[in-house]
């Protein structure tokens, strides 16, 4: 017994004490204290808060459930300080993870951050609270093309946060070819030199686009048409990675790939040798939005937060951290020319016009998953 105490318990608690007492003043049960950092002070200045903002719910808390790292910590802290609300942030790394917890009913989330096809489904199943536009005057900052999207006409239930596309990145030092579309990427000469997203829906949509079929028409017939295309493509892929496909490109382990626009923008910022190409066959646009679940307990606080995020300077700060397509035109004006001209972040108007958005495809999702898994395992 004494030996156990000596070898395990004591070093153990010594370590705990060392880390537990030293750094964080607040006890673990409290949410991260909103201590203002110098940058946050900038964002919290009352001078920039427009008139007409409501005071929120009686209970001064807000539970945010969002993608990891998608809402910068300093923004949360600044909002918390200015509004006086206690904000807790829980994170997920996929839409379905979020849905699983939402459906389980265990957490009480006031704000969620779903992608477009999920919002469609949530609206259909009546799981979102309608947003009171009167309490979110900053919605006027949104670009017109983002105010009436097919998955949520009139932004009744959601407010676009960040959007993006999926496109081709080429390491021009390793690849001198002129890459224009998906078929240019999947050539024999690039065998085992390609990185793609590990997303069955995405992969199938590229196949469909290369055949000229709209991405949402995933009938069994069309899947059968796409299968031989993918059979040719997938063995050429070296890395399947949805979390950080930029790693393989940065490390020189692959020469080109099809990745998220945000990843592309980071690569372009990192090194001039990377080039971004929007596939000529067609691309699709994804939109991540903020929404309020039906089970939310602090709807007005949530609306306060959404309005806060739509402020130009706040939104610009988000763009700084995540170079995605910012739907906030007022924020775009605050960006540096380099940020605004990053082709991965901001596609041209023609490219945008050509883009489709994913719709929920119901049970075909299962067939898509099976198709890609069986081809991968060959």
């Amino acid at each position, binding site marked *: 017994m004494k030996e156990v105490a000596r070898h395990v318990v004591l070093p153990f608690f010594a*370590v*705990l004490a060392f880390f537990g007492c030293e*750094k964080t003043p607040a006890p673990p049960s409290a949410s991260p204290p909103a201590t203002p950092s110098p940058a946050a002070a900038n964002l919290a200045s009352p001078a920039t808060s427009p008139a007409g903002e409501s005071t929120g719910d009686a209970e001064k808390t807000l539970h945010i459930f969002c993608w990891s790292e998608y809402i910068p910590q300093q923004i949360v802290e600044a909002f918390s300080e200015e509004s006086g609300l206690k904000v807790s942030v*829980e994170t997920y790394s996929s839409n379905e993870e979020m849905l*699983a917890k939402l459906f*389980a009913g265990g957490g009480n989330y006031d704000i969620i951050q779903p992608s477009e096809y999920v919002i469609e489904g949530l609206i259909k199943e009546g799981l979102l609270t309608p947003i009171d536009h009167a309490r979110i005057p900053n919605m006027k900052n949104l670009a017109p093309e983002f105010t009436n999207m097919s998955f949520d006409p009139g932004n009744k239930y959601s407010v676009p946060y960040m959007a993006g596309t999926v496109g081709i990145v080429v390491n021009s030092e390793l690849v001198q070819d002129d890459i224009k579309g998906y078929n240019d990427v999947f050539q024999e000469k690039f065998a085992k030199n390609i990185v793609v997203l590990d997303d069955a829906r995405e992969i199938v949509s590229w196949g469909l686009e290369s055949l000229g079929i709209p991405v949402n028409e995933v009938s069994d017939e069309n899947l059968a048409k796409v299968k031989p295309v993918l059979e040719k493509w997938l063995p050429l892929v070296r890395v399947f990675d949805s979390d*950080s496909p930029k790693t393989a490109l940065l490390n020189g382990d692959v020469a080109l790939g099809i990745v998220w626009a945000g990843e592309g923008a980071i690569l372009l910022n990192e090194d001039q040798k990377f080039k971004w190409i929007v596939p000529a066959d067609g691309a699709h646009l994804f939109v991540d939005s903020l929404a309020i679940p039906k089970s939310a307990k602090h709807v007005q606080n949530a609306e306060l937060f959404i309005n806060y995020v739509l402020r130009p300077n706040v939104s610009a700060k988000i763009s700084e951290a995540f170079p995605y397509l910012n739907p906030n035109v007022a924020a775009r004006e605050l960006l540096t020319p380099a940020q605004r001209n990053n082709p991965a972040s901001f596609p041209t108007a023609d490219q945008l016009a050509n883009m489709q958005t994913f719709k929920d495809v119901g049970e075909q999702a299962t067939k898509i998953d099976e198709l890609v898994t069986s081809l991968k395992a060959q």
Partner: protein
Amino acid sequence: MAVAATTTSPKRSSVPRKYGPMQVERWVFGLWTALVFAFLYIPILLLIVFSFNSSRLNIRWEGFSLKWYAALLENHALLTAFQNSLIVAAVTTILATLLGTMGAWMLYRYRFPFQRTIGFLIFIPMLIPEVLMGASLLAEFVHLLKLPLGYTTLIIAHTTFCFPFVLVGIQARLQGLDPFLEEAALDLGATPVQAFRLIIVPYLTPAIVAGALMSFTLSLDEYIVSVFTTGPQSQTLPLKVYGMAKVGLNPQLNALSTIFVIATVVLVLLSELLAHRKSS
């Protein structure tokens, strides 16, 4: 040479030899162990080096900087998450070690109904894919037990996940136990509880320590099960870290790990040296 009882192990050879097989054995295995440690610590050394890298992406060295350490001290969210991880891991270790040790002992020493089935069931938390364990525990916590998600549910989930490791380890050690030892103690008048405390537990100590180390390690890094069973206030470090890969892992993590690794190594060395000094 008589074979001594298995609970004591004299380490010194009775016939001192300079280059005998025992010594050769020691050198060869020592070299191998050194190589194994090199293998284990190479990535750790790399991440320590990169914690001083001025560039944000851990790919190229671009210059020495302490800015990540400075930023870390301001990053309350990260530190709180780390603190949560440590607390959850500590409590999990205590519970899992208790469960595992007592479980192994009960299975070894006693006969009770469904014993063999239980021996099979303990493998479930080890084998089952974490997403399934997480989803099923979440469903149970929310719908059956009506427990609010937070530290309690997190610790329950982690303990369930860790205790089979302890149990299997203790079972292995028990297989080498001389059963007559306990009999002898009982014959001399000890109660089963006393026999357990004074004979069995000291014998099991290395396995208990090993089990505790394994539990702590498993709990500290547990991600998927934590996703499903945590509440908003009990975010652990892996939960914070796993989304960071999208924008490139923040070198503040390197700084945190560096501090933790160095602190634990120093603490372990100190505590062992002090204990050794006291006893010798």
